[in-house]
């Protein structure tokens, strides 16, 4: 394993946290770099994958799954999260759904010189909606995924994990 791989967030780590936290269903819309995670999730018999064509659908589906006794995870990109504002408001916050949203942080640069407006507005959007969030960039800080699950369960609110490793972590 080289330094770049060591610093990455591996799809195996993400999957392990999903399983450790009892996720039953992943409601998702793929972004450009999640193919390896997709292959792992597809091979994991304990997970049901529910693919959507627009991210807002993931919110209402997750609400229904939760109402029926399941533990969904939403896996989308920041662009789609912003598109989903009203669904987050109505279906997740409005129904007190304790779901974790793993959100690909497109445009995240770590150094503040952001040229992608998807990144510019991501954290502002989360603050506007009062959604708490944790940034995960590598396996070293992946434990924050579990922190997010614990917080969602404790507060009965959605909690976001921003995946700041979009450009190489999932895509070996």
């Amino acid at each position: 394993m080289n330094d770049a791989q060591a610093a990455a967030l591996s799809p195996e780590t993400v999957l392990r946290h999903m399983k450790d936290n009892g996720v039953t269903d992943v409601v998702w819309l793929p972004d450009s770099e999640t193919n390896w995670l997709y292959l792992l999730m597809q091979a994991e018999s304990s997970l049901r994958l529910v693919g959507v064509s627009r991210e807002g659908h993931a919110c209402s589906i997750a609400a229904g799954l939760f109402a029926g006794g399941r533990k969904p995870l939403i896996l989308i990109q920041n662009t789609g999260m912003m598109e989903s504002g009203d669904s987050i408001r109505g279906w997740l916050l409005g129904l007190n759904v304790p779901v974790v949203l793993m959100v690909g942080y497109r445009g995240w640069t770590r150094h503040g010189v952001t040229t992608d407006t998807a990144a510019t507005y991501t954290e502002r959007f989360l603050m506007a909606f009062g959604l708490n969030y944790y940034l995960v960039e590598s396996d070293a800080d992946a434990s924050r995924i579990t922190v997010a699950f614990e917080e969602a369960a404790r507060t009965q609110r959605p909690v976001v994990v921003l995946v700041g490793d979009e450009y190489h972590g999932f895509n070996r």
Partner: protein
Amino acid sequence: MMRIAEALEAFKPHRGDALVVPGRGGRYWVDLTTDQKMDVPLGDPAMGGHAGFALGLALAQPNRRVVLFDSEGDILMSLGILTTIAEQVPANFYHFLLDNEVYATTGGQPVPNAKNVAYDKMALAAGYPRAHAFEEIGDLSREIGGILSRPGPVFVALKVYPEVENQPIGQRRRWNTRSRDQVLADLKSSLR
């Protein structure tokens, strides 16, 4: 065309132990239901999401029928959900559509291309294995038992009269006797 309440009356004897997501039909269903704790009247958390919610519920509870009364305004906002439902193939999912051709809760303005949309054909094109369309209550009453006795997913488009609400929202009768929190709490206790 038929009245929404008539369509719900036709459904009522065939309900069995189904979970009912009444959607825009909630204000009529609340006066008809005999099993309130198995109803999930959420009002309108965010427009376009009823089908997604009902799909999630159906996937979570595969041994119970889930019956949704969606609207054409909602489904037009979320046409892509039809492909997700078709891909998941929930055998317990019964997707009724109340098509009044207007946005009734905002004063009755027409939905786009209101009179020329074949929602049943859209559902079939998205991959639903079965779909029906009814304009007359007699036809629905005759067929609904058979539709509900076969596996889903199935899409049933119903042409209903527009029953337009023109009062300001804050002055309308609150038909839902339970809060959303109470609805979900009742549902969870019923599913135990």
